[in-house]
């Protein structure tokens, strides 16, 4: 197999999906952020963003914690060590391909 195609085939499918890629890239640059921030930056609706976050949490890439800001519930999200490593690897492979 062509090594370039081989590298493409090795890309992490969970991160490669555009919606999830946006979420992971935004979380990679910060310590943690809330749901509202991700919704504001990605322009996704609540349902779509929730489903992407669930998939990332399932994979162990994102840690979700629920808290309160005053009386308002707040969902805080941060990238786990596994998530950071996976994203770094994804970026490296993507650079190789391009």
């Amino acid at each position, binding site marked *: 197999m062509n090594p370039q195609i081989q590298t493409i085939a090795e890309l992490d499918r969970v991160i490669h999906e555009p919606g999830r*890629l*946006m979420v992971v*890239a*935004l979380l*990679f*640059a*910060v*310590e*943690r*952020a*809330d*749901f*509202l*921030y*991700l*919704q*504001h*930056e990605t322009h996704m609706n*609540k349902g779509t963003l929730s489903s992407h976050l669930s998939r990332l949490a399932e994979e162990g890439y994102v840690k979700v914690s629920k808290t309160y*800001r005053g009386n*308002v*519930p*707040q*969902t*805080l999200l941060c990238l786990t060590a596994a998530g950071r490593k996976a994203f770094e690897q994804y*970026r490296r492979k*993507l*650079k190789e391909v*391009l």
Partner: protein
Amino acid sequence: MDQVESLLSRPKFYYNIDGLVELGGGFMCLGSALLWWLLMRSPADSAWHQISLFAFVGLMLLIRYGTKAIKTRITYPRTGFVEYQRRWHSPVIAAALGALVTASLYVVFRRQWDISMLASLTGLVFAAAYGYGIARAVRWKWVIAGAIAVASFVIASLPSDVLGALASDSSVGHPGRAKLDGSIFLCLIAYGTMLLISGGISFWFYLRHTQAPAQDAQ
């Protein structure tokens, strides 16, 4: 790939999405200008000279916690909360730079060197830092970066008499010191005003174009 890289830089620019960083910077410059002016105008043995450092620290704390309170009440409920990564080297570099500048100013004042032109031209470094940190995200702010650079040149080219007239009576005997005092005062006023204008416009736009979602949004 570029799109991924641009996504990575977006949270950095989010910090000033509401213009509060500039407003804080503007108040800091104008507050410092006021403190500087009071220092220049009061006699060297006055109580003001003893407490000026505490007044400066108080001003910094007020701006720090004031900005935080406004962000908590206005920004986070509208466009979300972000906690940035804490890097150990940032405060170390800031402290080292602060110590270096303080030590340099001490030597300059002791030896009465005339560095008023150099002090004004540090505005070019400030303009470059502003361009890199803030204007990259919002294109019209390059006008502010340019205005800061132009103001630096104008202040650097002002005649000594004008700068000296702003300084204290006690430093009139030392022309170099009088010029330096005057140019620092003018620089603080000019940069503070520009930051306030720019931050004020951003804050106004932010309030106009954003709204807190209904409580069940999260």
